[in-house]
Each structure stands twice: as C-alpha cells, then as structure tokens.
C-alpha cells in the first residue's frame, strides 16, 4: 500500500465526515425512513388482502388467551406440568426394562467373560464395573424420560408456543433492567444452556447480553431434567398418597423450573442495578403464526437432534467418570479409600447446609456433564452406607430396576426429604457444566465474566440450601 493510497483513503473518510455535518439532519433515521417508505410503496402495490377469514382470527383468539394478563402464566404452568406428568408416568416401566437388560443380564455376563479370559481383576473393575456400568446406568436412567420429554417439548416449539412464553415474560425482564429478548434465550436454555448462551447473540447491547449469559444457567437444562424428575418422584411423590404421586412430583419439578425463572429475574435485577448498570433497550418481538406441527418430522428431529445427541454426550462423559468413580472407591490411603476421605471431610459442612458429602463429591465428578449426577450419587451412597446385597463389592454401580430400589438405597444412605429437596435446589443452583463454561468464555472473551458466571450460582446454591435447611429444622423441631 503506498502512502498516496493511504492519503486518498483518509481524504475519502474525511469528506464523508464533512458531508455528514453538512447534511445536518439525522442521517441514520433518514436512511431507515427511505427504506421503510420504499418498502411500503412496493408492498401496497403488490399485496391485496381480501376480507379476512375466520381462520386468521382463530390465531388471534388463541393469542388473546395464551398471552392474556390473567391466563397467560397459569396456562404456561399447566402446559409444563402436563409435559412433566406424562414424562414421569411414562418413563418408569421402560427404564426398568432397559436396566434389566443392560445391568442385570449383560453386566454379569461381561464380567464373567473378562474374568474367564484371565484379565486381572482391576482392569475388569475399571472397564466393566466402572466404565461399562456408568454407561449402562446413564442409558437406562436417561433414555426413557428424554425420549418422552423432548418430542413433547419440540411439538410445543413447532406449534409456535415458545415465542408466546417469551412474550409473556419479556415485560418482566425489561422491568428488571435486562433486555426483553432475554426471555427468548432463557427459554432456549431449558434445552441446553450452551445453546441458550450462543443464542444471546440476538441481543445487541453488550451490557444486556452479559446479564443474559450469566443468568442463563438458571434455566434447567436437558442434563438436569432427569435428576429433577427422579428425585421428585422418590422424595416428593413418595411423601404423598400413591394416586397423587405423579401429579405432585410433576408440580414439584415445575416449581423448581419456576424458581429458576425467579432467580434469573432477581439476579438480572441485581446485576443491572450494580455492576452492569443501564437502561433496558427497546425491541420488537414477533409472534409467529401457529402452524400445525408436523408430527413425524418433529419426532425424527427431536429423537436425532436432542435425545441421541444428549444421550451420546452423557455416555461419552459417563465412561471416564465411571473409571474415576471406580478408582476413588478402590484406591485407598491409610486403609480408607479416597471417596470416603473426601466424604468424611466435607460431611460436617454439607450436612449443615442440608446436603451431604456424597452429593458434593458427585457434583465434582460430574462437572463435565450434569447428566451423570444421579448415577454417581447412587453409586457413592452404596459405597459409604455399605449396603449389603447390592452390587458385587465396593466401587460397583449396582443394578437398579425400579424407582423403589433407588429410593430404598437413598434412604439407607441417610437421606431425608430435606436432602431430596436440597438436591433439587442445588441441581438448579450450581456451576454450569464444562461445555457451558467454555461457551461462556468463547462468547464473552472474558475470564472475569466466565468466573462470575461459574461461581455465582454455587454461592447462591449453598446459601439457598442453608436457608431451607435452617427453616426445615426450625419447623421440624
């Protein structure tokens, strides 16, 4: 590039600046105005609307109901509750069948086979009792609820309901000083937080975008729904008469999801009043027309894109986690294994906030993927409680054909309804998974915001669990 060229270009830019001042009026506005005027002119010429048919006003009638001031929120909760209820009621039987096949039947076969080939016991342990069982476990716990939940959720999405949820919520987000579009990214977070965080690109102001990124973790994601559903079924559903169990458990899961929304509003408000001060910017949200969902297509994409995708991710992370679990349960220091050392060491603090050392260790092992929290918790519980007759020795993830068995093990491990409730709360309020943390860093390019997004929910989780535990004990005593 010659100096002459550079000079010419600078002159060009300078003359643009001079011309801008000469014109004097607001150029940006007058450009937009010309575009709008011309678009309107052309559209008026080519579009003809005959009298509106009833079909169209049908859309508006639905909208008047589902986005109405009084009915909007109740309908939203009801729809969510129905989705969870169907998931909870439908998942139990297939879960048992898969566990029966993969764990009860295949696991001993594999183990005997490896032993008969003459491979040392510890390799057998790492591979079969660690990696294979963790994988089998994840599949039997997660596949059935996901195969029911995702298609239902995708049908709601395809029908056009989700933007209505955002429409109901956007005003609340604006009131707390965040961007109304955060309602959309929050809703996307219900699928996957990493996806929700990428979706914040639709927010133009950096201030509001960071708020949306930090608070996206408060939307329960795919990996956490199964935990919520299982624990609610055992502890909440188990505390009420059997005929109410399904409904009450579904209601409990919906409440946790709602609590997540409330926290995202509260934290957004806190951030926009302190470190990320500013006014909410205006925007327009478009309500797409209702479209009859294409059932087969939806089934296909929700099974391939979501169910298999999430399951695959869980399996990929479960295999190394299974190895880690087997190792911490079998490598001993001074006669006691590493897991028990950690659990004994953290128990005083953990019990104080209404959790236990097992849960804390499980959450550390499960940082790569939230999906494996429940299998890890169960395995570690068996190990610590020394429950006889389950599994085949320490460090083995045992067979589990029904929710009843899971419940029996957790109760034997000293779990109470309080532990269950606090696990559900902690599952909502803890650090994002490693994929999400990495995505936050990629999107913000800032270590500071990544650390804040990671640490803030953990602090809140402990605080909320502590508060609930104190209140619980106060009422109980």
């Amino acid at each position, binding site marked *: *590039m010659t100096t002459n*060229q550079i000079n010419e*270009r600078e002159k*060009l*830019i300078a*003359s*643009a600046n001079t*011309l*801008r001042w*000469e*014109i*004097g*009026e607001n*150029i*940006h506005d*007058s*450009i937009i105005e*010309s*575009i*709008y005027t*011309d*678009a*309107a002119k*052309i*559209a*008026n*010429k*080519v*579009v*003809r*609307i*005959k009298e*509106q*048919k009833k*079909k*169209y006003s049908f859309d508006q009638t639905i909208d008047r109901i589902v986005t109405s001031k009084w009915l909007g929120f109740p309908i939203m909760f009801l729809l969510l509750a129905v989705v969870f209820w169907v998931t909870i009621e439908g998942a139990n039987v297939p879960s048992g069948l898969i566990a029966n096949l993969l764990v009860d039947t295949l696991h001993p076969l594999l183990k005997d086979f490896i032993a008969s080939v003459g491979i040392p016991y510890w390799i057998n342990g790492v591979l079969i009792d660690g990696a294979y069982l963790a994988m089998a476990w994840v599949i039997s716990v997660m596949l059935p609820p996901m195969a029911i939940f995702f298609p239902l959720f*995708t049908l709601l*999405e*395809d029908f*056009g309901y*989700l*933007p209505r949820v955002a429409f109901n919520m956007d005003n609340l987000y604006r009131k707390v000083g965040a961007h109304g*579009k955060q309602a*959309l990214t929050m809703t996307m977070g219900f699928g996957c937080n990493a996806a929700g965080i*990428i*979706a914040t*690109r*639709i*927010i*133009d102001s950096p201030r509001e975008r960071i708020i949306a990124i930090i608070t996206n973790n408060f939307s329960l994601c795919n990996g956490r729904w199964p935990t919520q559903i299982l624990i609610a079924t055992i502890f909440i559903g188990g505390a009420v008469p059997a005929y109410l169990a399904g409904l009450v458990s579904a209601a409990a899961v919906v409440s946790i999801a709602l609590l997540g929304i409330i926290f995202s509003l509260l934290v957004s408000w806190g951030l926009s009043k302190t470190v990320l001060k500013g006014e909410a910017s205006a925007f327009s*949200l*478009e309500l*797409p*027309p209702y*479209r009859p969902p*294409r059932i087969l297509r939806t089934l*296909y*994409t929700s099974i*391939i*894109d979501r169910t298999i995708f999430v399951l695959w991710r869980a399996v990929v992370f479960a295999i190394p986690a299974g190895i880690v679990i087997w190792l911490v349960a079998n490598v001993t220091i001074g006669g006691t294994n590493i897991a028990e050392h950690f659990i004994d060491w953290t128990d005083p603090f953990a019990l104080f906030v209404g959790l236990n050392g097992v849960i804390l260790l499980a959450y550390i092992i499960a940082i790569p993927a939230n999906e494996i929290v429940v299998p890890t918790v169960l395995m570690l519980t068996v190990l610590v409680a020394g429950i006889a007759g389950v599994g085949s020795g320490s460090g083995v993830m045992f067979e589990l054909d029904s929710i009843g068995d899971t419940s029996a093990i957790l109760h034997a491990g000293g779990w109470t309804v309080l532990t269950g409730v606090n696990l559900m709360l902690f599952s909502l309020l803890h650090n994002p998974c490693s994929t999400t943390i990495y995505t936050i860093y990629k999107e913000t390019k800032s270590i500071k915001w990544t650390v804040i997004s990671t640490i803030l929910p953990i602090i809140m989780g402990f605080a909320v669990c502590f508060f609930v535990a104190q209140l619980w004990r106060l009422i109980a005593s």
Partner: protein
Amino acid sequence: MIDQNKCEACPVHNAGNLKRLGINMDKFDFVVALAGNPNTGKSTVFNNLTGLKQHTGNWPGKTVTRAEGGFEFNKNRYKLIDLPGTYSLLSTSTDEEIARDFILFGQPDVTVVVVDATRLERNLNLVLQVLEITDRAIVCLNLMDEAGRRNIEIDERALTRDLGIPVVPTEARQDVGIPELLKTVDDVVTGKLICKPYRITGSSKGLTKAVENLAEKIKNEFPGLPNARWVALRLLDGDQKIIDAVRSGEISGIVKRNAIEENFATV
C-alpha cells in the same frame, strides 16, 4: 386442475436434476447465500436443498450462526450458506453483522432472500437493504400457503418488475416451488437472467446529493466496486466497520473477485 404428470416431465420441474450433497461441499462452482427475516423458513429451504436435517423451529432467531451445506443442480455444484435471520443489515448486533459481512465480503454468486408472504412489507425492508449491497439476488416468496389461508394475494409479476430481480413463490414445508427456485438460481448464476435491482430513493435531497458525491469519489479510489452507493451510505452513517474496511483497503477484496469474473467473461 393442473395435470401434475405433465409438470413432472417439464425440464423446469425436473427434480431429478437436484442432487442433495449434505455436508459434502468439495469443488463447488457457485456459492448461494440464504438471507431473510427470522422465522420465514430459511432453514426449511436449506434442508430441502441440501438434504441435511438442521433442526427447524417455529421460533424466531433459531439460527444464530451460519450453517453450510451442498447440492448439485444441472451439473453445477453449489455451496449453500444459511445466514442468521435478521430484520435489517444496519444495526450492530452480532447476528446482523454475520449476515451482512457474508453478503458483502463473502461475495455469494447469488443471495436468496427468503420472505414471509404474509408479512411482505416488513420483509421488503431487508430485501431492499440486500439489494443495496449486491446485484444478484432472488426473492423466495415463502409461506404462500399461509398467505392463501389468510386471503392475502400477491402479484408476483408486479413484485418482480418493481424489485428488478426474480421472485419465486414457494411453500417450502411442502416442497412446493423448490424446483422453480433451483431453476432460477441456475439462471442467475449462469447469467441467463440479469438482475436490475431496485435502489432506494432517498427522501432527503441533501442526502441523495451527498451519496452521489461520495460514491463518485469511492469509485475513483476503488474502481470496479459494485456497490459504491451503499459504501457511501455506510460512510455517511458513520459505520465503523466499513470505515475500517475502506481505510485498510479490505473493501477492494470485492473488486478483485469481480474483476476476475469479468476477465473470464471476456475470454
């Protein structure tokens, strides 16, 4: 009632000419960009052409990054880019920047703007902005079935005339109009159809004069630039990205590629 069999036999309608290549994009001959407002069916059109199964949702803003895929039609191999859905190319949010930068610097051989037929006026805002940046564009007038249900009639021929670019009505969800769209893409990239795009007429005289004045200077500095008028508008609006591109000379990347193509044409 139209005889469907006759349609199938017609070369325009020959769906057999389409070969979906999925993510196989080697050795492509042409690049096609898909632009449009959010939730107009861009991803459905994308899946239709490439045979890929990108998750589509009735959900504005579903695609925030760009997706790529390939297809073959009439022995030409195409690379198709699904851009994020945007309402304009003016503002500064990341998704709008991705869309604009691709149309400007990626220099697609043709940009297909997918338009919601039930909301034509608002969708035209984006079409007009695309036409300021590039000459070669096609309007894919999607969701015609929905427009029909709402008793909205669109005079496509008048629209073609006014915009100066081809307009193809489609119902992408039902695969209706896709063969016609492919044929039109083929015609535009091979030069059988020449676009004479509509350009925005400014309402303010001062602005119009300033744009002409500045565009002249830009043409002198970067001879062969296809959209000097648009660059002038952006400079006047104080668009930092474009100011930087002018300063660094990056904007002339556009010129180079066009010059190469013209050389080919003269040979």
